[in-house]
């Protein structure tokens, strides 16, 4: 299962969600995408979008104010 990393720190909303959507289009079913962002709003946006699309989502605050969102493409 290939795993990819997408660094989105410093990007303002809604750019993190748009870039995540673009990346997910390129991945195959079962691939894993790990996103890093410090935008609280982006965490909410991305998690909600991915859940709605049926992807598996895991969110972890890995550092103070830094989130790691792990998505597994359906």
């Amino acid at each position, binding site marked *: 299962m290939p795993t*990819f*990393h997408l660094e989105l720190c*410093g990007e*303002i909303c809604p750019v993190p*969600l748009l870039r995540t959507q673009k990346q997910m289009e390129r991945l195959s079913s079962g691939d894993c*995408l790990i996103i890093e962002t410090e935008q*609280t*709003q982006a965490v909410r946006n991305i998690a909600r979008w991915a859940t709605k699309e049926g992807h598996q989502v895991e969110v972890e605050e890995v550092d103070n*104010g830094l989130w*790691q969102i792990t998505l597994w493409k359906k």
Partner: protein
Amino acid sequence: MKDQTAFPIPAGSKLRAKKKNQLPWFWLVLILALAAAWVLGTCNSRLVFFWAFGIVYGLVFQRSRFCPAAGVRDGFITRDFSNAQTLVLILLLTTIGYSVLQYWTWVHHCPIPGHLAPFGWTTAVGGLLFGVGMVLVGNCVLGALVRLGEGHAAQLLALTGIIFGSTLAAYLYSRPFFKLGVQAAVYLPCVLGWPLALGLQLAFLGAIYWWLKRQP
């Protein structure tokens, strides 16, 4: 923007070490906030209330992760209406709250609060500039202050713009050209009466909320 594509990494890898302890910073900020409250209290006791209210308001806003700018913007860009729903719900609640407050002051013959006056053509220009700025910066004024508090240094640029724009508007406010085309304010409770005005506004907002809820 930085690199446009994601890069592959070994599966199961952790990208960050464990969190740093921020408790000492919390205590330091709390002591400074209390000291500031004490200094404000020596000038005017009402300032302590404003100070405490501002801190609590900011805390609630930050923890809620709600974004008014996203409420207006995301429906157009990503077809996500969840923030818009929250925004309309807030308007619904504040309509009821403000109506109670305004009715109470009206019954007691006090000046009605929140009675907005029309501004003229500059309202439309200001609205357009504010909207463009909001999308470029990624949030509204409240969001910019919260993000700055979270440590987003880039928001200092937004803060500079907020201070510059507000100062300029306060300076130009009384100039005649600022109020060209101004007509008397239409205050719905005066025209329709309180029950109908309140009912109409609640029905209008309720209809928008219902429509937003139905979006996929």
